[in-house]
Structures are given as C-alpha cells and as structure tokens.
C-alpha cells in the first residue's frame, strides 16, 4: 500500500478538517426556514408498515439492490450515450482554422 501510506497522516488530517468544516456548515441547515417548514409539515418515509406489499420475501431483499442498480445504471448509460454522441458530432464537424 505504498501509494496509500505516502504522506497519509498529513493528507488525512487535511481531508478530515475540511470535511468537518463542511459538515459543520451543513449541520446549520436545520436553522433555515426550509428546515423549519419541513419540521412543521412533518415527514414520513415509506409509510408506517401499513399495507405492506404482497411480494415474496426474497424480492424484499433483492429489490433495494435493483433500485440502486437502476438509479446508478440508467444515468450512467445516458451519460455514456451523450458523451458518445457528442464525440461523434465533434468528429464530423470541420475543424476550425485559427
């Protein structure tokens, strides 16, 4: 792990300090009117266990991973498509003379 151990203490300290500073700023978000509004409205995620879907137990374990693969995979494929198309368009366009 020579690349990882190279100056790792000083580098890790900088990363830690910067991250703690950013976390400190992010934690202040709960002082905003946005947070106040959400706290007043209330928030529930995925219901309270009422009306559980009637699907096999195995799927209950597999579906969250499928969701992740879709949420990561689809934007990845779209971005690859956009990059491939833009590269193809660039190749076809005549090069500008300076």
């Amino acid at each position: 792990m020579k690349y990882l151990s190279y100056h790792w203490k000083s580098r890790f300290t900088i990363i830690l300090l910067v991250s703690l500073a950013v976390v400190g700023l992010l934690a202040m978000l709960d002082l905003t009117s946005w947070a106040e509004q959400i706290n007043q409205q209330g928030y529930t995620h995925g219901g309270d266990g009422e009306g559980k879907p009637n699907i096999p137990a195995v799927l209950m374990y597999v579906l969250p991973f499928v969701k992740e693969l879709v949420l990561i995979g689809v934007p990845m494929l779209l971005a690859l498509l956009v990059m491939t198309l833009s590269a193809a368009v660039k190749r076809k366009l005549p090069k500008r003379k300076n």
Partner: protein
Amino acid sequence: MSDWKQNLQKTRYVMDVLLIVSFMIISAPQSTGIPLHEWGSLLFVVPFAIHLLLHWDWIKKSARRFLLRSTFKERFSTILNYLLYIMMLLVFVSGFLVSVSLLPALHITISIQDFWSKVHNEFASLIMPVIGVHLALHWRWIVNLTKKMSAKGVAL
C-alpha cells in the same frame, strides 16, 4: 493479483471496487436492516477516505486546472466531483442525526427532526444518479483497468 499494490492505477481500481460495493450494501437498509446500515455507514468512512487519499494529486490540482486550462468535460467532472463530495457528507451527517441504532448504542440521545429524515432519504436517492454520471465520466479508465486486472497470465 498479488502485485496490484505496487501500481497506483490498480490500487485505485481495487479500492474503488471496494468503495462501490460497500456503498451499495450500506445503501440498502431495507435489505440489510437498520443496525448494519448505520454501523456499516460508519465503516464506509474508511473506503471513502481511501478514495480521496488515492486521488490527492487530482484534488490538489483541480482548482487551478478548473480556472486555467480545461475542457468542458473536465470542468463538468470537477463540479460533479465536488458536488458528490458535499452530497456524501450531507447524507453522512443527516444519517447520524436520524440514527436509531448507532447513537443509542453509544448512549447518545438526540431528538430526530423530520427535516433530517427527509434530507437523508432524498439525498441518499439523489446521490445515486450523480454516482452513475461520475462512473460514466471515468468509463474508459474502468474498462481499461478491468481488462488489465482480468487478463490471465499477465503480471499484475
């Protein structure tokens, strides 16, 4: 496979695989259960920090390159990387602020705010497409390294 530690690109590849696999495991609390999700997230700090350490040179040069000379793709990638870093920290901090397993186990009691629950759930989903685009921007590197790492009979 034994020699990957001697090569920066291969070290990055192995650590990045570890990072994405651990991310996917901790991002599925419905499958793993809340305690594993929360304790796993605490451990996830390690591969996340390793990822940043292994890209130290990029971090150091990114601001200067962004301002001076870079293509649209490079600039977009830089903005996306910093956005991803901030989103990851936001998911971390909101996750700890809505903890129902980790903090109580450490005898730390906090009152959970709906705001942090909403932020945690929504940004945890939002971060995934950003990771997808991040992977797409490094797709050529991923394919090349996968070929190198899986090549039989080639000294790694």
